[in-house]
């Protein structure tokens, strides 16, 4: 059974008539992780926001988006609000702009939880505390009393993951969650994502332009270029035997960097190419 099915999704700009996503169809199975890769401007984020119905008002969309067999285009804004967070949870790239800068983290978290559950204040804090501990955040109570600007990008990213753990969504949509992070936090956040999948058994849509991260986490991959899906398949197959020229190009550029690095680490003589 497919948890999410997207058929003939088309997104266009009302003002200019330009098509941003031409005709895209894909589906997400239960307990699987689908990655969308492509360069900036290829329509990865617009696809995700179309699923959440969060695109700007000048972007119109047509086609079918079936979540558990129900078309989300038929839902009213009020029903959609109930779905966001509880059923479809989105983890954003920039932690700094994802949280409300005018209040401490704890208030924002409680507001979100109050929208979906009838929990007491104490219960919310307790659940958030254990979730935050599980993503390796020390002193959760202290963190909940801090403003977003007092925390680092990696910490905010992990708070968003902790919130997802408490909400227990059916689908997690992660839009470039590791791009703004440095190497060590990136590694830790990816580990948390893997654990999150094991624990909740939820499906995930993972957007990234870094093929190394995608290879590490995803089962299936879609390659997008200029609003079109040019290639799809199992992650290992797509990366080992890319069919489309564009995928070949993406894979080969990434390989140059890795090969050079691996050569150094294996201690062979470094080829000086000028």
């Amino acid at each position, binding site marked *: 059974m497919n948890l999410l099915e997207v058929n003939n999704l088309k997104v266009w700009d009302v003002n200019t008539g330009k098509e941003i996503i031409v005709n895209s169809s894909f589906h997400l199975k239960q307990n699987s992780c689908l990655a969308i890769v492509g*360069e*900036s*401007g290829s329509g990865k984020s617009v696809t995700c926001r179309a699923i959440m119905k969060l695109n700007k008002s000048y972007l119109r969309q047509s086609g079918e988006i079936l979540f558990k067999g129900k078309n989300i285009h038929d839902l009213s804004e009020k029903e959609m609000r109930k779905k966001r967070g509880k059923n479809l949870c989105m983890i954003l790239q920039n932690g700094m702009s994802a949280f409300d800068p005018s209040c401490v983290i704890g208030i924002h978290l409680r507001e979100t939880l109050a929208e979906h559950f009838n929990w007491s204040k104490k219960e919310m804090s307790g659940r958030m505390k254990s979730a935050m501990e599980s993503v390796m955040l020390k002193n959760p109570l202290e963190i909940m009393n801090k403003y977003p600007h007092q925390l*680092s*990008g*990696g910490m905010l990213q992990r708070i968003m993951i902790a919130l997802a753990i408490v909400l227990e969504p059916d689908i997690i949509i992660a839009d470039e969650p590791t791009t703004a*992070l*440095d*190497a*060590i*936090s*990136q*590694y*830790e956040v*990816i580990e948390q994502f893997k654990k999150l999948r094991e624990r909740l058994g939820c499906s995930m849509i993972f957007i990234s*332009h*870094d*093929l*190394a*991260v995608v*290879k*590490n986490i995803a089962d299936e991959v879609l390659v997008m270029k200029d609003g079109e899906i040019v290639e799809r398949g199992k992650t290992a197959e797509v990366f080992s035997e890319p069919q489309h020229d564009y995928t070949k*190009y*993406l894979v080969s*550029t*990434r*390989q*140059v*960097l*890795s090969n*050079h*690095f*691996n050569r*150094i*680490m*294996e*201690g062979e003589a*470094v080829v000086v*190419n*000028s």
Partner: protein
Amino acid sequence: MLLTVDGVEKSYKKGGMFSTKSQLVLKSISFECKDGECLGIIGESGSGKSTLGRLILGIEKPDQGKVLFDGKSVEDRNIRAGSISAVFQDYKSSINPFFTVEDAIMEPLTNSFKDDKENQFRVDTLLNQVGLTPAFKNKYPHELSGGEVQRVCIARAISIEPSCIVLDEAISSLDVSVQMQILTLLKKLKGIYNMSYIFITHDLQAAAYLCDRVIIFKEGQIEETVSIEQLKDVQSDYAKKLLQSLITF
């Protein structure tokens, strides 16, 4: 020795307007960069690597210690002019939005070379060198993609033929495939101009591709300095952790 950083310390004021607390960002940093060397500075966010970049550029003054360029202090504008230039991470704010590509590259050129006709010709050559065409001259920065703007920034940086360029996270906000193009371009330009690069980044793999030597930086201190060939034999715990947590393709 082209660039010498000797015992540099820097702290910033912390807290409110009347606070006397201060935070030490850099603690007694000393290193050297030779002529034509590419030196990588690697560290996580908040480790003070960008502050160090600004001190090298002479935009800010160190509290203690000296930054010497060819034996002279970089605090003097005349020492810097025509010798050090920079490329920054945020390509959107790097070029004046009211300037065309031509204006942006001409600005440093008119300071260094007086002949206007020749400068026009130089702009064309520079654009060709960074993989763009002279047709880009009349475009504005918002009309270009991230990779293209970063190429213009590089063209602007090399226009005065400096002996040293500071690249502060110059490729970090670009797509991986575009990052590769820029790295190849930087390698090519190094061959032409024989410049030194100070390559500040958090991406060890990119640094390993370009640099001869890397400084691993943590909490305002140098953890370890290692040449690229010996990268696999790092000693400090932090450097080992950094290598382990790399996600390779």
